[in-house]
């Protein structure tokens, strides 16, 4: 079968048309991909901005928490010590040498305790610096204040050191998560025992906090309105690309597990 020149010319025309259409689709594809790249870049910027805002908020909250602790301590602890010092001083009879010596020793002891308290408060006021030293140290220091109240039996399990987190100031957010969970326990759980575990498994950091308090119905709280504290915990964990797992049974305490990837 012979192909006529007319047919060949038609074939050449058709092929040329296809060769003209192909770049059209290619250019369209490149532009679409580029648009997706722009959306992705914008999303990244928005996420970074959200992260920065949340970080700022977290830092302010950490400071507020510190100031509250300082206020409570000034009122309940240092205030009491100084009042006792003042009362003891007012009862000194200079003629009664034996009692005077004893009272002075007592006042000296009270003063030393006040100095120690003020030093501890001063350290607390630099909580941001404390976080820079390490998450374990910051949590440990925070727990040392909680232990003073004798309201809770506290167990803190942590390795000797942790791998530094990749993103800037991630530790501050984790520390704030810890503070929020502890605050929730203090305010609502009516617990007597708190167990805090900080561990690294694979490429993830795990913060597990459990208590033996009254617990709550997770589904109910989620349906009605997730408490501001719990919703914040979820939101902030998500910001660190992590997962917050909240489990609780009424009457049997609660366990909150936060898993954050290192990269």
């Amino acid at each position, binding site marked *: 079968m012979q192909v006529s*020149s007319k047919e*060949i*010319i038609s074939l*050449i*025309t058709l*092929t*040329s048309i296809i*060769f*003209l259409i*192909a*770049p*059209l689709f*290619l*250019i369209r594809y*490149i*532009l679409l*991909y*580029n648009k997706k*790249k*722009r959306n*992705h*870049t914008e999303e990244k910027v928005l996420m970074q901005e959200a992260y920065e805002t949340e970080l700022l908020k977290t830092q302010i909250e950490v400071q507020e928490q510190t100031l509250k602790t300082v206020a409570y301590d000034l009122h309940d602890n240092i205030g009491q010590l100084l009042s006792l010092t003042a009362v003891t001083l007012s009862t000194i009879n200079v003629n009664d040498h034996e009692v005077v010596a004893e009272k002075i020793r007592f006042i000296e002891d009270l003063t030393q305790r006040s100095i120690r308290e003020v030093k501890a408060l001063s350290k607390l006021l630099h909580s941001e610096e404390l976080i820079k030293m390490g998450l374990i140290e910051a949590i440990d220091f925070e727990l040392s204040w909680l232990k003073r109240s004798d309201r809770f039996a506290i167990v803190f399990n942590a390795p000797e050191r942790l791998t530094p987190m990749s993103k800037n100031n991630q530790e501050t957010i984790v520390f704030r998560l810890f503070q929020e969970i502890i605050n929730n326990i203090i305010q609502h759980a009516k617990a007597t025992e708190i167990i805090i575990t900080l561990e690294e498994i694979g490429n993830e950091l795990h913060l597990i906090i459990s208590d033996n308090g009254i617990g709550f119905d997770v589904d109910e709280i989620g349906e009605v309105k997730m408490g501001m504290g719990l919703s914040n915990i979820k939101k902030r964990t998500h910001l660190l690309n992590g997962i917050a797992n909240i489990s609780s049974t009424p009457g049997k305490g609660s366990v909150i597990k936060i898993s954050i990837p290192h990269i």
Partner: protein
Amino acid sequence: MKLVTFNTAIEFICFLAALFLLPRDKDLAWKLMIPYLFLTFLVETAGLYLRKQGISNLELYNGFLILECFFTSFFFFRLYRIYQVKLKWLIGWLTTFSVLYVIEMIYHDFSSFTSFTATTMSVVFVLSCLYFYYLKLKDELYEPLLSSASFWWISGSLFFYFGSTVCNLFFDYLRENEPGKYNQSVRYLIFNILNIILYSFWIFSFICRYRQRRSSL
């Protein structure tokens, strides 16, 4: 004698656009577009004149192919500058082109259009365009391509060189087998469409370039 055709008209418009939009451009390659487009217009008009006089214009187009190849290759090289493409690639390609061109000229006894060299050149330019897209896809940084002069210049070139590949491949066949006048032929129609696309894209790329320069002042 009518010397104004679709081709010459769009080439002249493109030259005027370059003349108004590019003279103050900082990049030499873009600035050189002005004389290049002027020469293209002159060659096209001269080719038309010769054809109407019944004189062969093959020598003219064969000569212009050298200028087209050297200038376009240099332009591509300048566009790839930011991606650190080495000069040896440009020199290597231009040497290959020159060798092919001379061999084909000798083979056809200087009496035919160097269609094989032109097809090879088209293929190389198509690959260069595709490589540009590849680099853009690979680049993680977003660049607004709709207002990118280089993107539109490359896209116009891709349309032209990709679309003309078939015509170049069958150049001799079409010349011998197409009945009637050249300006009624398929070749003429395809090249008209290709030229309109090419120069429209290039004019838009000049506008982008002009805007870019104005906004950076």
